[in-house]
């Protein structure tokens, strides 16, 4: 078939044999199994040719990397409740989905996957939603490479000049209801990135943001004002609270991060306690203050109606 097509379209190239990249001046087509991917220069293709070729081959957008067999199976699993049958099924647990997104027109999916692949020892699996967002499927054994998503963000930002965000769902021990889990991870990521400027987050990081976002505007304002009182506009104190929570209420570590002497931080905490009656050194009180801080930040914002957890998972 290839030889016959080449007689009609002399520019025909076979991916992997004649060329190693998907040139954007070519239209690309693959067979069902991606065993053969061929490209024909656009100058040789009239709309009628494209329609004809598309009848027996699958058109492929050159901006996207060619999906592997396993990626196709995961795609199928997140789009429907059914998993591929029998021995062909390469979907396995434990796994987790990590949602990612980056700005438009900054990088192509092919480029992104090539760079990300270099950070992992095993072949990575990416399920693209669009040119700027998708899901990374992580198998537990492949995830332990010593590079955190926070580091990956900085590394790719300096190499690819692109601002990337990652949101990791919890690990799953079974492949049941993959489609629901997928929607939960994606919806939560979109929601939480509207309230947090962190570039790399996990589901556990997101929970307080989600709880606060689910409260009414009035309740958020009330909690913020009641708990934080005169500190509600005190940027330094709010930062101190945030750092303390991030440092597991460890005073020495927090003082170091805040560039304060340990005693100065103790003094500030004493003052906060005297004025509000809340001791941030106690876990449950710190949690209340942290939620009040998030409530204050989201206080004036109107959230669109809708349940974040509509898909369960």
């Amino acid at each position, binding site marked *: 078939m290839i030889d016959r097509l080449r007689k009609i379209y002399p520019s025909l190239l076979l991916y992997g044999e004649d060329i190693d990249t998907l040139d954007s001046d070519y239209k690309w087509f693959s067979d069902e199994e991606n065993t053969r991917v061929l490209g024909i220069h656009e100058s040789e293709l009239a709309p009628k040719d494209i329609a004809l070729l598309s009848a027996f081959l699958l058109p492929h957008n050159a901006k996207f990397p060619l999906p592997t067999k396993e990626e196709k199976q995961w795609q199928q699993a997140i789009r429907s409740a059914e998993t591929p049958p029998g021995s062909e099924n390469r979907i396995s647990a434990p796994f987790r989905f990590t949602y990612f997104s980056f700005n438009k027109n900054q990088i192509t999916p092919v480029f992104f996957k090539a*760079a990300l692949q*270099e*950070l992992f020892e095993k072949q990575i699996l990416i399920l693209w939603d669009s040119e700027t967002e998708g899901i990374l499927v992580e198998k537990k054994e492949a995830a332990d490479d010593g590079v*955190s998503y926070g580091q990956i963000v900085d*590394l790719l*930002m300096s190499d690819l*000049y692109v601002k990337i965000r990652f949101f990791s769902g919890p690990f799953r021990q079974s492949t049941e209801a993959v489609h629901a889990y997928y929607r939960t991870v994606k919806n939560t990521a979109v929601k939480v990135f509207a309230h947090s*400027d962190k570039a790399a987050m996990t589901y556990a990081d997101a929970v307080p943001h989600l709880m606060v976002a689910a409260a009414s505007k009035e309740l958020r304002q009330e909690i913020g004002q009641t708990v934080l009182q005169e500190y509600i506009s005190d940027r330094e104190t709010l930062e101190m609270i945030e750092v303390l929570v991030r440092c597991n209420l460890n005073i020495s570590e927090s003082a170091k991060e805040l560039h304060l002497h340990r005693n100065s931080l103790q003094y500030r905490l004493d003052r906060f306690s005297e004025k509000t009656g809340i001791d941030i050194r106690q876990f449950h009180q710190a949690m209340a203050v942290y939620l009040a801080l998030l409530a204050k930040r989201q206080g004036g914002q109107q959230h669109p109606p809708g349940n974040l957890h509509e898909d369960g998972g």
Partner: protein
Amino acid sequence: MAGLSLKNVKKVYENDVVSVQDFNLEVRDKEFLVLVGPSGCGKSTTLRMIAGLEDITEGDLYIGDKRVNDIAPKDRDIAMVFQNYALYPHMNVYDNMAFSLKLRKMKKQEIKTRVDRAAGILGLENYLSRKPKALSGGQRQRVALGRAIVRDAEVFLMDEPLSNLDAKLRVQMRAEIQKLHQRLQTTTVYVTHDQTEAMTMATRLVVMKDGLIQQVGSPKEVYEKPNNVFVGGFIGSPPMNFFLGHLQGEHFIVGDEKIRVPEGKLKTLRAQDYDGKDVILGIRPEDIHDEPLFIDSSADTKIRATVDVAELMGAEIILYSSIGGQNFIARVDARYGTEAGQPIDLAFDLSKAHFFDAASELRIH
């Protein structure tokens, strides 16, 4: 090489939070400019707007004479180094440095020339085949710098690149980055919260707070002539001391102490109608003296105080004390052996002091 120009730049996030405003700055060609300020002051946002990683809400950004607001980051001819100096764990040092060039489909020979040159500059020639886990923290950070050098960019942007290093290595890398800048002469914008890092590295400093520039100047200018109380307190360690008091005749009154104001400063204060009004006196810890000779010659700026804490630092002692209920710090010579609990005579060198408006906190000059 190129300079940068930011004109009336403003950044407002989607949640209406104003991160940076009224930002006007000319970064000169080959300059090492440091943006410094506390957390949340807008310095990293400014750097990311220069990089193109954050959109500019209002205003104009020029690299050289080209307006780049709408130019994609990859086309701005910049190279970036961030706080996380992570490397690709499965690549050796050579490939780590070469990777971004390979992605840009640069020819192999050109890549080799650039990587070898960067490795030579950074003393990494013997480590090119090593994987990151076989490198020390300092070597990894040098590879991260190498990844920026190979770009041969017009401008380097560095966002807290030394924050993750321990104190000793930080000092060492500080010197290495300075040497690198002297050699490459690439225009550099460097962000840090650490005023010591800022003072020691900058050609010029930009001190920021709450999204606004507080002062731009050489480290010496900013240290010696702070625009306001914030800058005086932020730049310098230990920080500048501030006393709220009032001007009465020829004296600054704080608590029971009367400190004679030198003629020149008095003239400036009187010309602006501060006589009899509240003002803030700012004086650096090293301008408070305990040497008998200085005290004898400065009887009209002498105060009596009790030392609460005396920290021996080697050649000097840091004294913590107070007058009129206002705490201050003095940095004095260790040879006089001042100890905590002692009443002590100290004299202020008012020729080096500054007065600030009590309401606006701006320096009176």
